[in-house]
């Protein structure tokens, strides 16, 4: 039996199960007990109400540092909003930031520090999946709830544990398969893929091809590029002449060279170009030399450039994080944010707040109740807590699902041309974490 519960502060609709209801009842009982305490005891309790400590595993150094800077800003902005609104269960939120060096071994050490040294209630953060995969087992051993913002399909694949959740950002598998309907219906049925020749490229190859075929399309060529390649023109003649859509997911320092050479090769007369904004995240899209991007399509988790129908929640989010209508810092138009992804930090923190409130979270002994409260969540309506849009959380796989955006570069601006349904991005469950013991 479930009871819908809507929190007006964050608009999050959770279904409180028996367990979380127990949590809520115990909070209530705590409140009654507190009211019956003598005045001096209540005063003492209020004085010792410590902040809720959230260990923030941030890529401050190493290859993820550029992301870390904006993830940090988004996190600080979300915490400010939460604290200005009274905190969580009446307690302020304190962020304890530790650098994980974008390194899995270091990441595990940091998780351990959160639990044993800094007395953190939970761990949060981290983008690069190898750090998440390196850290999650330690979080599980230490029974520290670990909320990740990495997009990795590793959470829903079942390879992690009950303490690791990804409730604030969709995973790469759902992003890729959600692209297929638009590609085949709008851009063309004959698709050629260009991808780097290693695991990341294979994820796209292996997820997109079946999805395209299910839509009646066909992947007619798969061109794998060696990871250390920095010159690409020699690969382009391998693109079949009847290609209607070129799906590219190149990454690394040579990605601008790739885009430039692709543009020079086709001279604006080739197939439709479709890519993921990841490769150009934080890069000014109308930079000189990137003119070839005009009229090409990109996946965006959240639309960097302000759209005509932007929701008031997103407008408020932009202001809170400090970015302008082009996704750049308010005081430096060249400092373009990692806008397509960083909302994940904001939304995750609001899920943590909602979860702690539903569980009546008071301290580390309530960690399991917190996990159960988040597992019980389903619909997350669009709100200031979820400015990217409404979402559905799957408590069994610990993964959230949401809308994806496809934008076209028009006059140097990313204009959204399609927003996928949540159903487009759903795939069968591979795990039920709720059956695993705490």
């Amino acid at each position, binding site marked *: 039996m479930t009871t819908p519960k809507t929190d007006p502060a964050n608009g999050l609709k959770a279904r409180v199960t028996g367990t979380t209801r127990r949590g809520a009842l115990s909070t209530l009982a705590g409140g009654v007990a507190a009211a019956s305490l003598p005045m001096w005891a209540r005063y003492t309790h209020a004085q010792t109400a410590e902040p809720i400590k959230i260990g923030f595993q941030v890529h401050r150094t190493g290859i993820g540092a550029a*992301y870390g800077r904006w993830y940090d800003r988004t996190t600080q902005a979300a915490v400010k909003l939460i604290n200005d609104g009274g905190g969580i269960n009446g307690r302020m939120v304190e962020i304890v930031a530790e650098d994980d060096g974008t390194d899995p071994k270091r990441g595990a050490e940091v998780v351990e520090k959160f639990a044993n040294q800094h007395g953190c209630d939970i761990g949060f953060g981290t983008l690069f999946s190898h750090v998440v995969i390196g850290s999650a087992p330690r979080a599980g051993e230490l029974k520290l709830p670990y909320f990740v913002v990495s997009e990795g399909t590793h959470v829903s694949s079942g390879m992690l544990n009950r303490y690791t959740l990804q409730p604030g950002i969709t995973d790469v598998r759902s992003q890729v398969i959600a692209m297929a309907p638009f590609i085949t219906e709008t851009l063309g049925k004959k698709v050629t893929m260009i991808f780097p020749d290693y695991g990341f490229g294979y994820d796209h190859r292996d997820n997109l091809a079946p999805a395209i075929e299910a839509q009646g399309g066909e992947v007619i060529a798969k061109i794998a590029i060696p*990871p250390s390649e920095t010159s690409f023109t020699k690969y382009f003649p391998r693109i079949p002449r009847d290609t209607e859509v070129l799906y590219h997911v190149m990454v690394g320092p040579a990605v601008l060279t790739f885009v430039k050479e692709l543009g020079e090769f086709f001279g604006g007369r080739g197939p439709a170009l479709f890519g993921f904004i990841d490769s150009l995240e*934080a890069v000014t899209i109308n930079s000189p030399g990137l003119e070839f991007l005009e009229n090409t399509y990109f996946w965006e988790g959240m639309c960097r450039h302000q759209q005509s129908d932007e929701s008031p929640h997103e407008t408020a989010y932009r202001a809170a994080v400090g970015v302008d209508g082009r996704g750049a810092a308010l005081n430096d138009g060249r400092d373009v944010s990692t806008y397509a992804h960083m909302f994940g930090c904001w939304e995750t923190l609001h899920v943590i707040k909602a979860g702690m409130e539903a569980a009546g979270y008071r301290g580390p002994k309530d960690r399991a109740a917190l996990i159960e409260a988040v597992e019980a969540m389903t619909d997350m309506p669009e709100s200031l807590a979820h400015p990217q849009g409404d979402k559905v959380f799957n408590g069994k796989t610990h993964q959230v699902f949401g809308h994806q955006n496809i934008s076209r570069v028009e006059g140097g601006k990313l204009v959204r041309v399609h927003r996928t349904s949540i159903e487009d991005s759903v795939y069968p469950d591979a795990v039920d974490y709720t059956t695993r013991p705490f």
Partner: protein
Amino acid sequence: MRVIGLSGVFLALTTTVLWAHASEQGFVLLLPTDIYIVAGGLTVLITVALLAVLPDRLTDALFRPARLTAVRPRSWHRHIMSLAVAIVLGWLVWRGVVGPRDPGVNPLPLSVWVVFWIGLVSLQGLLGDVWRWLNPWTGVGALLHRVTGSRAPLRYPRRLGYWPAVLGFLGFSGFLLADPAPSDPGRLALIIGLYWYAMLAGLALFGPAWMARAEAITVLMRAYRHVALVGRMRGRLAIGVPGWQILSGPATGTGLAVFCLLMLGSGSFDGVNETFLWLDLLGINPLEFPGRSAVILPNLLGLLAANAALIAVFSGALALGERLAGGTTRLPALFCLYAPTILPIALAYHVAHYLTSFLVDGQYVLRALARALNLAEVHVTAGFLNSPGPVKVIWLAQAGTVVAGHVIAILLAHALAMRSGHGRGRAVLGQAPLAAFMVGYTVFGLWLLATPRGA
């Protein structure tokens, strides 16, 4: 998995262990760097050619300093300054232990890696001997001496020479290049605190000779002092073309000569270890860097190998030159004579390598200062690295620095060769292999700035 490669263009951007920065690498790859590299190599080659035809005394004249005002240094001034620095260092170490865990906020990593390692070392090499005033041991040493009234009980063993400093510097470079988290405030506090204490013990036991020969940072700073514009000459301040103090300075011993080469070798490897080439060599996908903890041993071995290779090639060039010129000077003497000429290149690498880091990480320092002083919040931006214009300016500044370092090194080596008194023909012939080495190293240095990086 996608997220490994998620950062796209950012993946290759670290020029330091501190804070990687945004997408300038992608824009660097769009620059015609091949042309710039050839131009840089030609500049050094033309310098060599000009030296063969220009008047003999030209280089000596070029490096003759202009003498300025007389200086009467009062040692108590700098002892007080040094004591103040020691107190600040103590505070920083304490903050490292109990302060914020974020290395972008904690003042210890910011002070050690940005203010000291990038800023002060560059200032020492470019401007003049600031370390004399900022050395955090000498003031405490003087105070101990004054309070106890006793001199250092032991004599520094002469046979140790500069070798303790050589080991110390290799240890420092190993920490910088191979430790998984050199910016972790707690870890850094422990290492800095212990090192400071150990070196103070050395100073107390062996006196100032310990500082001058065994303490790696002081030896490094005193070496870079010789490259600076401003120095002292016969009781007066003097200013001259960078490197003039190398020609007017005392002869260099073997340990110090090796130390000079390690400064360049370690600095160069600090670029090599991030390149696609190096990662390929290790069998690591450069788009999927597994983190520093996975490359600790390769980085340590690479550091040693790079330094050994540099010493071998440098020695080979000197030996070959002497043979070509028909000279009889033995290699150790040549090595000690010419090793200091490498210092301008080492400094140029240091400045060029850390320039972008300094521009970004310096803002974290300003932000920390602004917060401490309750001033308006500083917005840390890497925006200038996301546009092609500033990236080109920064790259050319780095390349120009590297080329200038090599040109000065060539001029210094030529001036030293002319002093041997065997005539220009023999000097030019004897310098030919070293000149070829310098041209090659210029090309290598510019390639390092241009090549894609993945760590």
